[in-house]
């Protein structure tokens, strides 16, 4: 796949390296130091850093401003953008705002329902859905046009990503849904956290058979488990998460004070196995409020040092 944007992530992938991405959640306040500190912990071990957009519908510092703080310290951000909170005017406006700061990566999402967050009585917008947001960014970038048809001066140059969940129901449309996102114009995918490796490999094999892994870069999502409690919570309470019983049992099988270490080891083993699977273009390491573990995971998985890119 040829390079279409100045994105470092795109260059790394196009050069055939397995990319490493991670993510940081902005603070519930306006101190930029919080986001900078998280970035400092991981900056040498990952290629780019996603900034979440009011994740789980809890109000936080906005993704765009947080991306700007990363950019200023020389870390390449991925702007996450959900369709829950903004209509097409605001989405396009924010895309241009990000482009003005030379933010070169965007991840298009629908976002969790607002009932999970701190503004359960608020409206949701969903003027576009995540596929239509992908189409919008591609239109703005490739044709230099707004949805309304007008011309954009200095169009955005963004590498366009989206999420995919190989584990969610209905199972029968997991690969067709990926195909649909590709048809909409997506260029990279970060998957839901993988604990059920067999199921993930099945999904990827099906995608490969349809030739989809030639058309999109798939970054496998991993999250280290901190405790058996977290494993059970993810298994039972988080929609669309598939944590097999063996993983829970493995976490339960070690004493409490060793569980975090075991979680990291499971994560490292997951990456090691998936590194060898054709179609895995890289890894998205989501260490939720546990950023300090990212360097260890990346090193132990044999993904360090990261390639230098101009």
């Amino acid at each position, binding site marked *: 796949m040829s390079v279409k944007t100045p994105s470092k992530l795109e260059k790394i992938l196009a050069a055939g390296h397995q990319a490493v991405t991670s993510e940081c959640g902005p603070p519930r306040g306006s101190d930029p130091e919080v986001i900078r500190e998280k970035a400092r912990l991981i900056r040498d071990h990952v290629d780019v850093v996603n900034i979440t957009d009011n994740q789980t519908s809890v109000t936080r510092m906005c993704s765009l401003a947080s991306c700007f703080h990363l950019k200023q310290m020389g870390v390449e951000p991925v702007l996450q953008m959900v369709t829950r909170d903004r209509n097409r005017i605001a989405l396009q406006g924010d895309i241009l705002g990000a482009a003005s700061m030379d933010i070169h990566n965007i991840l298009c999402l629908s976002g969790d329902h607002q*009932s999970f967050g701190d503004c359960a009585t608020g409206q949701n917008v969903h003027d576009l859905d*995540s596929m239509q947001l992908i189409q919008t960014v591609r239109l703005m970038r490739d044709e230099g046009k707004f949805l309304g048809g007008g011309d954009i001066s200095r169009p955005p140059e963004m590498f366009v990503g989206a999420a995919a969940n190989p584990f969610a129901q209905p199972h029968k449309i997991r690969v067709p*849904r990926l195909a649909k996102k590709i048809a909409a114009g997506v260029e990279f995918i970060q998957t839901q956290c993988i604990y059920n490796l067999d199921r993930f490999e099945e999904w990827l094999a099906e995608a490969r058979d349809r030739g989809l892994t030639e058309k999109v870069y798939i970054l496998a999502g991993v999250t280290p488990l901190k405790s058996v409690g977290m494993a059970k919570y993810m298994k039972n309470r988080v929609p*669309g998460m598939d944590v097999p019983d063996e993983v829970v049992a493995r976490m339960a099988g070690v004493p409490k004070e060793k569980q975090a270490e075991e979680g990291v080891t499971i994560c490292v083993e997951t990456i090691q196995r998936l590194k060898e699977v054709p179609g895995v273009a890289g890894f998205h390491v989501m260490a939720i409020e546990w950023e300090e573990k990212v360097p260890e995971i990346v090193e132990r998985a044999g993904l360090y040092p990261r390639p230098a890119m101009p």
Partner: protein
Amino acid sequence: MIVGKQKPIEETWAMVKDFSRVLVFGCNTCVAVCHEGGNKEAQILASLMRMKATQEGLSLEIRDSGIERQCEHEFFESAEKDIEWADAVLSLACGVGVQFMVKRYPEILVYPGLDTCFLGDVEKNGLFTESCQACGKCVLAETAGICPVSRCAKRVLNGPCGGSNKGACEINKDLPCAWQLIVDRLEALGRLADYERLAPIKDWSTERAGGPRKLIHEEFMK
């Protein structure tokens, strides 16, 4: 049909208790079907209010009445006397009926007795479910006859979102995910390949977003 739910009596009582002649006024079509605002419910609410008046030592007079539909002129004749008698009407119609009365009787105070909830069907006795939001440009032909605008919590046109969970919507395990229903029906019809058609960006100007809507038939306006 339009589905509504009676407001708590504390709320409606506070609206009307300081008047001297109150009419509790039922609407005997949609909101009668959902057992909230028909003429029978108007009768019951009026007697509850009379008891309240006695308890609180208030001397207001409360009557009940009702008509077939409060959203059309032609049904009002039989109730004209009751309405003229009242100095306040507690209408048990949907918001459309309440406002129609406001237009028709500008000099009478009309209060809403219901919270109007949604456009829905009678899925089975006692169960009413939302199934349309009158978006003004129906997409049912593209979605296997199941409406993602009203039945998906994020109205995604290319669903399901990542939260679809064992057939249920992420917001509530008792609420079916509209997109699971769409996919299942496409499969049952042997049309699962249609799932891969991208739904275009929707024109929402025919929906609430475009401002209040009107339908005009000149030929009937004389």
